[in-house]
């Protein structure tokens, strides 16, 4: 989800930089007291570990593919939202500087898309309320904590990744980079990131549950107390049940997110239509006879003006698959061509050296 410099216009990049800078400023202000000086090494070591941990492949059972770790949610659960945000900013900066993962100009946008949502939205909207709630209270302290962590992580990662993916689409579209219509882009990005979010959430929760079992005081807002009753359902069962629940909830969310822009389009269309029928009404009142002609003209106008869009909206799923199929095949072709060209380039270079 790292955006490249090329996908942003300078204005959008600057706006996102400003938004990130303000968040960094307030976070630093919140953390600026001696008490938190002690937190600095913990922040550094944890974010270095998260950075390294992001390179591990986690096998997803039943599939051949693998998932990766989501940083923001985990860091804010361990360090709190402000410290987590700063740690994420640092991770993203190092990725962009040393690994060219996300550009220098796009850093502001990347921080916003991944760090802000993951840390602040994830923490205040999901983590804190869920950890503070009376959910699963019957299970006993430890099991309650565990269940809450899993729920908060999975929901948190799904929601924050959906927001992040939506922001990527929004930023690219506002930058005027892509010819890809907004809906199609959203239609591709949101479902992909739903799956990613789910897996990331599960991995994050697995790590946090482990930490919680060993040293509960390290996890923010987690219930601490005597080890409660032995949990009724094992971690694995809980994980699977939650995965199913979240798949359903997340699916709805993603659908809502991807239908939202359609709604926008629809309302725009509706307005124009309303304006048009107003005209028509006028026509009717004054020239009763020509109203038919007006109607025909109107329908022609409607067809020419909205037909492309209409067709796209109606057959969105079909168009979506065609577009993604095309993108996929072109991507493969592009990658192959690139490898050939680069290979040839290096060979020639070696030969001349």
């Amino acid at each position: 989800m790292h955006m490249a410099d090329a996908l942003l216009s300078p204005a959008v990049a600057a706006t996102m930089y400003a938004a990130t800078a303000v968040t960094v400023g307030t976070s630093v202000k919140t953390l600026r007291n001696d008490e938190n000086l002690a937190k600095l090494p913990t922040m550094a070591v944890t974010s270095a570990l998260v950075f390294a941990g992001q390179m591990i492949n986690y096998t997803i059972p039943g599939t051949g593919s693998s998932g990766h770790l989501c940083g923001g949610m985990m860091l804010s659960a361990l360090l709190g939202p402000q410290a987590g945000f700063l740690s994420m900013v640092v991770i993203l900066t190092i990725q962009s500087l040393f690994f060219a993962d996300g550009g220098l100009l796009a850093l502001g946008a990347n921080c916003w898309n991944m760090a802000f949502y993951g840390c602040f939205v994830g923490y205040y909207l999901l983590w804190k309320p869920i950890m503070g709630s009376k959910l699963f209270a019957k299970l006993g302290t430890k099991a309650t904590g565990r269940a809450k962590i899993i729920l908060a992580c999975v929901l948190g990662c799904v929601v924050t990744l959906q927001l992040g993916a939506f922001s990527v689409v929004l930023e690219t579209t506002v930058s005027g980079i892509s010819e890809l219509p907004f809906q199609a882009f959203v239609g591709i990005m949101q479902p992909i990131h739903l799956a990613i979010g789910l897996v990331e959430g599960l991995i994050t929760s697995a790590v946090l549950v482990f930490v919680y079992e060993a040293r509960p005081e390290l996890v923010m807002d987690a219930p601490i107390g005597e080890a409660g009753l032995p949990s009724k359902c094992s971690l694995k069962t809980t994980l699977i049940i939650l995965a199913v629940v979240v798949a359903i909830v997340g699916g709805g969310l993603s659908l809502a997110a991807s239908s939202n822009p359609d709604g926008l389009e629809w309302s725009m269309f509706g307005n124009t239509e309303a304006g048009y029928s107003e005209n028509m009404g006028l026509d009717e009142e004054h020239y009763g006879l020509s109203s038919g002609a007006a109607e025909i003209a109107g329908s022609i106008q409607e067809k020419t003006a909205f037909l492309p869009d209409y067709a796209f909206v109606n057959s969105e799923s079909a168009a979506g698959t065609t577009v993604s199929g095309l993108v996929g095949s072109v991507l493969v072709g592009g990658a192959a061509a690139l490898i050939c060209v680069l290979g040839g380039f290096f060979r020639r270079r070696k030969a001349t050296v």
Partner: protein
Amino acid sequence: MDKLPQAQSELREMDTLAAADSPVHRLHPICKLSVTLLYIVIVVSFPKYDLSGLTAMVLYPVIAYQMAGIPIRLCFRKLRYVLPLVCAVGLVNPFLDHTPFVTLGSFTVTGGIISMLTLLFKGCFSLMASFLLIATTSIDSICAALRKLHVPELLVTLLLLTYRYIGVMLEEVGIMSQSYRLRSPGQKGIHISAWGSFLGQLLLRSMDRAQELYSSMLLRGFRGEFFYAQGSPFGFGDAVFLLGWGIAFLCARRWNLPAVAGSIFVR
């Protein structure tokens, strides 16, 4: 899990490059940072059909790489991070934008093809520039520059410390994943049963490490401030480099230099 050793070697390679000496290495970090940012902003600001104008911008990285003595091919390996999303976005343009642009024989180059190429070039160019920055500037100089630019102390200190411990952590995660792999033949990644404990173990150990680290800082009188090597001040050469390239970039953006050059030969 082959990403780990790769990341380690990439990190080491960047350090080695940055430790070398050349006119570009000797420039003031603020100068390099400004030129790089200006370059990227200008590259990105080219309109989507202005492919020919954009090509002139390739000159800065090509010249600067030569000045720094860094082979340009090194940065292309990093393209694998940048390309996927840029491609995903850029490669659909030819299918959606059929505005005819140029006809080469029977083949019509559409606006979509042009805008796709522009996008890819922008991606490559900005990558080349930021790679050059970090390949010629060490992390401590960058942090010192950021402090001079009034980036909050906490953030810069965190950047410095995190960078230092990334090497340590990559090693620890590498050792752990190796010991995991040795006992789990045929597995491509971490099995679900170890999802939590793998990183969790390391995390717990890291917390102890952080505690040790903090003691070590306190024992040497840490009060929230870090110190950087005193680099040479922003000199005349830095000003010339910054102004020269700045003007060159702005000219390239204002006038289509390749077209101007071409019009000399083509009538």
